[in-house]
């Protein structure tokens, strides 16, 4: 690992397990509340699960891979840039798509949904770039 990679301050590999653990807990929480085992308000369940999901995706994104080298660093940075452009693109284009299909120019997507979709786009980009290089 070179100096640039050390300066990136990525989390140790162990955090991947923690991230998947949080994800599983979120799914379990949704299942339990849907099956009425837990009687919690729907809005609270949505907030907790979306925050948990965001946290686990963030941990996955900033956790070191088993082998971290300059090529993976480059892929990581390109994927981050691509997901940022995707996010901005979605915010710009979404009102026009709404106008086209719903006759409504207002954007109804929340920040959490946008961030989750940006993270998913990031992981998709990393997967594609790793396969093509």
């Amino acid at each position, binding site marked *: *690992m070179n100096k640039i990679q050390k300066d990136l301050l990525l989390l140790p590999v162990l955090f991947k397990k923690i991230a998947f653990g949080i994800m599983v807990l979120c799914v379990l929480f949704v299942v339990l509340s849907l099956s009425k085992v837990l009687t919690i308000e729907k809005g609270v369940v949505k907030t907790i699960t979306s925050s948990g999901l965001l946290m686990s995706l963030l941990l996955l994104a900033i956790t070191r891979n088993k*082998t971290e*080298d*300059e*090529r*993976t660093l480059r892929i990581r940075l390109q994927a981050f840039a691509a997901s940022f452009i995707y996010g901005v693109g979605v915010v710009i284009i979404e009102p026009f798509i709404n106008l086209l299909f719903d006759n409504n120019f207002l954007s109804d997507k929340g920040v959490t949904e946008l961030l989750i979709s940006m993270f998913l786009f990031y992981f998709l980009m990393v997967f594609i770039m790793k396969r093509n*290089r």
Partner: protein
Amino acid sequence: MKNTIKIQRAIKDLTQEALAKKISVSRQTINSIEKNRYVPSTVLALKISEVFDKSVNEIFELEDED
């Protein structure tokens, strides 16, 4: 940029995995460099040249489009 890593590996009887281990990168990175899909940094090029006891110019060669 062309390179002769594959030939140098064959001379030294090194697998991609073994070379990757020596210079602390992944096997996929070595594969990408060999197939000219990834241009390594100066540091990595110097590490590769050190493994093969050759100068960087003997392993990497500029092409017209570079």
